[in-house]
């Protein structure tokens, strides 16, 4: 999105879709805790502070209406300033649905963490419903010495339903250097072979965990395979990616939880 669009009034109901933003800024309060000087949502994107634990501030994304629908453009920005600890979750799964107009939808997530900050981005699943067409762009920029735990889970269709079209790109930069850039494209109209033996092979849930810990620079986690559907993979940088595929959301979550546990406590 260009700067021109960025400067527009926050909430614009463009023809065929809703434009909505949510912003969270977490700052170390100087007394061992984390404050939230910015906590803003609008329209379908509401944000609530929930009970934190210890020095961590917790925020919940609350969907005030279902979406994104075709033509919608949502942007969520979360920043953990140096030394802050922020955990962002969501109250429910996000359901991508077709809109009244045959336009695609877009969901941008921008995550930033400063030196010594700890950012946990742990939303519930994204469900790609039949007929929907959604592009998700997740961009993470970390300072050297920041920590990250990010989980993404994509579920292709509601129970027994054909999926919609879903494209999800995830990039992670540490100290300006890109350590992960990957895109998953699936559903009707996606490039050929997405559901074949090299793609998802009939699995209807796919997920990623990205774990960034400064300690991984000296001691990267060992690569390992967990069952048939998941692998822990140290990246070229102080980070690891867990990729998992499963028949459904429940089994996917179990695989990802197991993989995270295998990385030990930091």
């Amino acid at each position, binding site marked *: 999105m260009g700067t021109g669009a960025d400067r527009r009034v926050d909430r614009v109901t463009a023809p065929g879709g809703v434009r909505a933003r949510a912003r969270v800024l977490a700052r170390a309060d100087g007394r061992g805790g984390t404050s939230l000087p910015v906590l803003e949502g609008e329209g379908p994107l509401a944000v609530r502070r929930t009970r934190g634990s210890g020095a961590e501030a917790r925020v919940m994304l609350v969907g005030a209406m279902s979406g994104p629908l075709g033509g919608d453009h949502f942007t969520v920005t979360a920043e953990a300033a140096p030394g802050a600890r922020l955990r962002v979750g969501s109250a429910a799964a996000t359901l991508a649905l077709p809109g009244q107009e045959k336009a695609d939808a877009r969901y941008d997530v921008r995550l930033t963490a400063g030196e010594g900050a700890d950012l946990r981005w742990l939303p519930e699943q994204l469900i790609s419903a039949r007929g929907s067409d959604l592009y998700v762009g997740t961009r993470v920029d970390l300072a050297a010495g920041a920590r990250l735990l990010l989980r993404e889970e994509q579920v292709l269709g509601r129970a027994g339903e054909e999926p919609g079209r879903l494209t999800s*790109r995830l*990039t992670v930069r540490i100290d300006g*250097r*890109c*350590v*992960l*850039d*990957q*895109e*998953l*494209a699936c559903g009707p109209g996606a*490039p*050929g*072979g*997405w559901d*074949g*033996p*090299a*793609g*998802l*092979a009939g*699995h209807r849930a*796919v997920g990623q965990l990205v774990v960034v810990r400064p300690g991984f620079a000296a001691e990267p986690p060992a*690569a*390992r*395979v967990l069952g*048939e*559907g*998941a*692998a822990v*993979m*140290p*990246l*070229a940088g102080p980070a690891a*990616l867990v*990729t*998992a*595929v499963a028949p459904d959301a429940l089994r996917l979550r179990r695989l990802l939880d197991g993989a995270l546990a295998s990385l030990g406590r930091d």
Partner: protein
Amino acid sequence: MSRAALLVLADGRFPAGGHAHSGGAEAAVRAGRVTDAATLEAFCRGRLHTGGVVAASLAAAAALGTDPVELDRAADARTPSPALRTVARRLGRQLTRAARATWPHPELDALAARFPKGAHQPVVLGVAARAAGLGALDAAYCSAYEGVSGPATAVVRLLSLDPFDATGVLARLAADVDLVARDAVEAAGRVRAEGTGVLPARSAPLLEIAAEAHAGWPVRLFAS
């Protein structure tokens, strides 16, 4: 440009070590996901539109003269599997050696000096194409085609598939290879102005997971 040079570089017998790799086909055969010509075709098509287009775009960008160090980093970021990064570098080192002997060129010498353990194979392929006097589209075609011909040849051995059927699969993928090569060159052409972030990054989750499992097998026919 010499069309004959393209044939030399694209020849499956070019001595760059590719014959020892199945491009994930061995693991897919073992898992029962590739069993015949139809499933081989689906496998190859999926591979072509994910890792295939990524590799082709890296090769095209290298052929255009983009800094190989930048491209090698972009390849690392697009290859989360450490087993596949190791394979890509080993194949890159072998291709560097073969290309330097075939088309001596200072850029190949510089690449070998900068990456003694090998750069990612598609990056080397692009530089080799430059050394051979070929262009970005040639490099993209070489990369995209070898990305499907490797698994097809491997499956002939793994499943005793009829070689006529395997070649038929490659012929049916021709339109997809054309598309991928064009997309790869289009993206590569934007790198100079917009950086390597414009290169495609499409991934195939099962290929990554299976590559990690395959690397741990005690006995296997192919190195990857």
